[in-house]
């Protein structure tokens, strides 16, 4: 690992063409251990495609992909479970990895869905299912997490908690994360590196650099660039549910 500076996956000038149309083109990025790389961009800009290139799901691609790990946890954007398949949450948890009962319980507990362990997977709500997907991806203690809009459909409070969990896990496991998100607040506050996509890489860099980029403003509008200043006030306190301020230690 030390030979390649802790790089987990590296894309060099990659692209995918389907039916004579480029889904995405000329993307280069690398995810290192302990770092969070985020892809942002409008719908259809090639975010999920880029993630799938990194994961090796697309076979006929332009450019070069190098993976330096096989321990990967993936939360896809869309997944549908066929009704012909009877499957409980616990069966789904150990889909690609052999897990002990404790490991399953712990992961489900982290995302707050421990009580659903024996439920049928297809009877979960959208947000519950999303939590199970995240739990499954982190339960195998991956080197690389690829999260494609991981908190879609999760309630507001859960959303923040899950993002915090994701960050915590990346720190604890030291794994790299490739994140796709529409939540610019979160992206800008928690990410090490941002790629702004629109069929190609519009701009990239640290959140600070990207927000100031004129292309970013073009893509997301003027208000988007104020996000950083809004969010980045120094958080030395938290708010309890009734609104009182609690000072952090």
């Amino acid at each position, binding site marked *: 690992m030390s030979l390649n500076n802790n790089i987990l996956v590296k894309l060099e000038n990659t692209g995918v063409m389907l039916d004579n149309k480029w889904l995405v083109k000329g993307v280069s990025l690398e995810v290192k251990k302990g770092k969070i790389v985020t892809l942002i961009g409008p719908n259809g800009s090639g975010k999920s495609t880029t993630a799938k290139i990194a994961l090796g*799901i697309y076979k006929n691609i332009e450019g070069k992909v190098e993976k330096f790990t096989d321990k990967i946890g993936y939360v*896809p954007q869309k*997944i549908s*479970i066929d009704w012909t398949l009877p499957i*409980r949450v616990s*069966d789904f948890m150990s889909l690609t990895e052999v897990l002990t009962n404790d490991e399953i319980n712990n992961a489900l507990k982290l995302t707050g869905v421990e009580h659903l362990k024996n439920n049928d997977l297809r009877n979960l709500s959208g947000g519950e299912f999303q939590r199970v997907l995240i739990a499954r991806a982190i339960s195998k203690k991956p080197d690389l997490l*690829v999260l494609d809009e991981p908190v879609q459909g999760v309630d507001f409070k859960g959303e923040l908690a899950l993002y915090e969990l994701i960050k915590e896990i990346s720190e604890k496991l030291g794994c790299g994360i490739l994140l796709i998100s529409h939540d610019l607040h979160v992206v800008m506050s928690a990410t090490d590196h941002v790629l702004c996509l629109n069929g190609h890489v519009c701009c990239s860099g640290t959140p600070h650099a990207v927000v100031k980029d004129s292309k970013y403003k073009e893509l997301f509008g003027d208000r988007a660039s104020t996000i950083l200043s809004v969010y980045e006030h120094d958080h030395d306190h938290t708010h309890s549910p009734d609104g009182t301020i609690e000072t952090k230690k």
Partner: protein
Amino acid sequence: MFDDFFIRALVAGLGVALVTGPLGCFVIWRRLSFFAGTLAHSSLLGVTLAFSFDINISFSVLLISSAVALILLRLQKTTKLPSDALLGLLAHSSLAIGLVVIGFLSYIRFDIMGLLFGDILAVNKKDLLVIWVGGAIILLVLKLIWKPLFASTVNYELAEAEGMKPEKTNAVFTILMAAIIAISIKMVGILLITGMLIIPAAMARNLANNPKQMIIISIIGGLLAVVLGLYSSLEFNTASGPSIITAALVLFILSMFNIKKFKQLKK
């Protein structure tokens, strides 16, 4: 004890049911029932080739079924036709070629009915060996590829992303399908083997709430169908293959009642 034709039939049938149980579950989960039917249809060609060149029937059926499966995979990539059209094309053209070849083999007396519907009562000791050894190998391989196969059944991209190599696994599974058809063709016949794969698994779907349970129930259902079917064919003097499938259907219908009752109890 294998000298009694009925015992032989029973042992053969049970051996086949042990394998069709788990494979049938995957057929249902992956929506492959038409695919299984296509392989079965193409096996007639395999049988006729076996007679033409005087080679082992199971072996040549395995060969032809695998070839048809590979052609299908190729066609799916190179043509724009939907899968069901391709399956129909392969199923009926290979069946037709098989029947045409039979015409050329007029010097051999063919029991077409036996081929189409099976003749489990004519199973000999060598067939038993093929069924049980072949079946054991199929089950062993299935156990070895269980995890990646199941993962790619649930979600192909997830399996691919997390290093389960689904393409390879799917190819192995296709060969297993060809193999079970090859070893059981003599028992239930070309037209009914798909029923043996699907009906016990469908019954199990009605009763199970997790994948492993479904496989176990499917196996038990298949075994029961064989025993019930064979004894009733002896009792009523009916064809054995169809009797087994009919017994499986009866079990399926019973499993539906079970669900209704269960739901009423819940209310």
